């Protein structure tokens, strides 16, 4: 089920009604769990079995990991959990990709091997709930948090419908304890939740689907070289589309959870205002980058094994992060580019740290009056380089990606204009406003900004979002991140 559908509106109203019945907390949690299963099954009912399997296995393995004192047995349990979770992810998400690459290698070695193409459907949200359950078992292994006491609470931790399909990726201590004691949303939480839900839907339906999807699709679907203007506008449109799509989903998820009295972690913090690449990853898909940092980058050594290994570890993390997004080499290149950017940034930072050491060996304080315009210029440079990476993220293959990059950076002979005047205007206006808005909001949150606005102005802004949402009539387009 997607948030931007009539089905969800009905589901949400029914859930709010049932969840607020004057019955025991356990009964309300059971309602929440059954509702979450219904939310998932409304997409493809059989795949709920995978979710159950993952929940049951990790609940018991997690508990055993926490209590097991024998190191060998403990490691074995962890391996069982990793194989179970990652095996399922590998089969459904990477099965076809692995086979395709295996066939390429085998054929390159001279063997004539052509197996039938596997027809594997990717269960929605598998990458998200696998990471959620994985971090639980790893935490149990490291005894970083206590096991969830009841199967009901653990099932809710994994399945709670707002975050189930596309995050935010929650950690056990962030969500599981919230199910332990009775919860009821305060009036304030409900207003904030409804505001965030309206904002998230506005971002997804009006901006991502209504304004930017079509020009991005046109440009990335073009089979010929494009005018430089068209190529850039298509890439910019996609950069806006993917932000509004995914941040819109996260905003809806946080808002829906708030309406029930729960708090989900922040997932986006105006990423196009980032003044560096590490800053970008602290603002874009925050819960994934934090997951990769804590469960991959740090365990493989992080920055503890010298500068060279730090760069290698950064690259490994970003390459796997790229592959997490999709079973295609283009995603790996996307991750590699981000890894490269991070390495270069780190190198520059290390060098400038050395040069800014004074005679006593302490770091010279940065000029407090470093002006805003320099920061904005850095943000625009980061935005420019991030846009280059989006080409590989969105392009279906390398041929299309190279053709588009060539169009972006050179004047190609016989190139074509594909975007009508209206799309040119819409993309230009929406992207400029988006970037300025990100910059203006970079150190605050939307709820903080809303709290400072007079009610009449906020009411007008809110009504404008709702009216545009209703008039958009893009009711059931699924979110881009569902495919990941």
């Amino acid at each position, binding site marked *: 089920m*997607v948030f931007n559908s009539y089905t969800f509106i009905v589901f949400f109203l029914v859930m709010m009604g049932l969840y607020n019945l004057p019955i025991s907390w356990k009964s309300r949690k059971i309602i929440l769990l059954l509702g979450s299963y219904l939310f998932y099954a409304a997409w493809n009912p059989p795949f709920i079995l995978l979710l159950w399997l993952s929940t049951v296995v990790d609940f018991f393995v997690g508990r055993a990991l926490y209590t097991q004192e024998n190191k060998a047995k403990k490691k074995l349990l962890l391996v069982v959990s990793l194989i179970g979770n990652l095996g399922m992810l590998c089969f459904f998400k990477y099965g076809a990709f692995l086979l395709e690459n295996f066939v390429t290698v085998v054929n390159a070695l001279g063997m004539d091997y052509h197996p039938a193409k596997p027809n594997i459907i990717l269960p929605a949200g598998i990458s998200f709930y696998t990471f959620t359950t994985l971090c639980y078992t790893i935490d149990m292994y490291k005894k970083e948090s206590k096991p969830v006491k009841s199967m009901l609470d653990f099932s809710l931790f994994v399945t709670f419908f707002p975050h189930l399909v596309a995050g935010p990726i929650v950690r056990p201590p962030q969500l599981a304890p919230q199910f332990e004691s009775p919860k009821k949303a305060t009036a304030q939480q409900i207003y904030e939740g409804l505001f965030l839900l309206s904002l998230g839907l506005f971002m997804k339906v009006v901006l991502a689907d209504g304004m930017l999807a079509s020009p991005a699709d046109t440009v990335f679907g073009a089979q010929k070289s494009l005018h430089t203007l068209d190529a850039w506008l298509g890439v910019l449109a996609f950069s806006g589309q993917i932000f509004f799509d995914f941040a819109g989903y996260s905003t809806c998820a946080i808002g829906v959870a708030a309406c029930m009295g729960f708090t989900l972690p922040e997932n986006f913090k105006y990423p196009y205002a980032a003044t560096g690449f590490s800053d970008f990853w602290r603002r874009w898909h925050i819960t994934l980058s934090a997951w990769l940092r804590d469960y991959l980058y740090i365990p493989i050594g992080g920055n503890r094994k010298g500068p060279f290994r730090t760069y290698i570890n950064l690259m490994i993390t970003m390459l796997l992060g790229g592959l997490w997004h999709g079973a295609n080499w283009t995603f790996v290149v996307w991750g590699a580019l981000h890894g490269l950017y991070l390495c270069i940034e780190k190198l520059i930072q290390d060098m400038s740290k050395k040069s800014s050491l004074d005679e006593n060996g302490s770091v010279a304080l940065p000029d407090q009056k470093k002006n805003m315009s320099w920061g904005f210029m850095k943000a625009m440079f980061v935005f420019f380089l991030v846009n280059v990476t989006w080409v590989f993220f969105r392009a279906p293959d390398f041929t299309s990606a190279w053709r588009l990059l060539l169009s972006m950076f050179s004047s190609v002979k016989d190139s074509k204009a594909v975007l009508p005047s209206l799309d040119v205007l819409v993309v230009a206006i929406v992207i400029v406003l988006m970037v300025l808005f990100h910059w203006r909001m970079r150190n605050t949150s939307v709820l903080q900004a809303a709290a400072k606005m007079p009610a009449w102005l906020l009411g007008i802004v809110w009504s404008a979002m709702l009216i545009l949402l209703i008039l958009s009539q893009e009711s059931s387009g699924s979110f881009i991140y569902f495919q990941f």
Partner: protein
Amino acid sequence: MKHTPLRNALLLACGIVILFLIFWETYLRSTGIGISYDDGPELWTHKRSLVTKEQERATVFIGSSRNKYDLDIEIWRSLTGEDAIQLAFEGTSPMPVLDNLADDSLFKGKLVIDVTEMLLFSTNPEDSRLAKKGLDYYKNITPAQWFSFQVNKPLESKFVFLERDYFSIKALLKRIDIPTRAGMEKEPLFPIDFGRISFDRQNKMSDKFLKEISIQDSVKNIWSYYSRMGAKQPPPTQQSIDSIFQVIQKDVQKITARGGKVMFVRTPSSGIFLQIEQQIFPREHFWNRILSVTGAPGIHFMDYPEQQLICPEDSHLSPTDAITYTKSLVKVLETEKGWSFPNKTKSN
């Protein structure tokens, strides 16, 4: 509790939204616009799902927009006592849908295929896009999408502003007159009065459209635009045409072998449109060949004086003429083609 302006803002926002929607709906209705359904893959999927369930009491129609304008479904129901399931797509070849019905082993009902030669024999993928989108949606529909359709149906039947093709933001923006970029031709937009769509997927021209020649001419200009665009595409080769004949033959054979009935119809066109069609797709090389390779019967409008009607914009019939045409179609099916409608006596 921390005080924020959110509660008052929410109340104000709800008030503004309700007032705006009342104003917008009232304004649209005051201009004479009535309800028209969104004819997207959701509605098509709903109709497609009826095919095997209703096949004992219904005839399936596939083809392009001519079928949607020329068949008056109410008249069809009253004359046959049976339903008409309209599966045609505007501006689209019926081939993907014909393939799908032929491959559906449960389908053994009555099928009417509209022959608009320039679409049926097109090899341009764009001419199959809508059908493929509809089929894709039908094959992969989720329970959530099904439920959304059930909620949307009563809403669409009550509110004019919920018409996506003309009143969504995207559609409204497209109607702003902005100079086109050099080297690009602006895609023309059909006037709203050209096609109002019922829940049965029948298109009807409005009274205003029938009265105002200038609106009719604007649609004729759109045909010229598409004709110019079509001329830029490489013409279908004899080989591709032959292979389409082969696929049609195979598909028809599959359906008739299961006990299904197939009828080809050539719906009316007139004026310059008809002249061009006759020139590019001569009857003896296309229509006659379809009937001979498939062995299926056909009804060509040129063979029946009562079907030789004038199309206001050269390609589709007016609602009044659609009634005349449908009556004639039922009559020919019963009297000449041996089709029977067993439910007729019960219903009439």
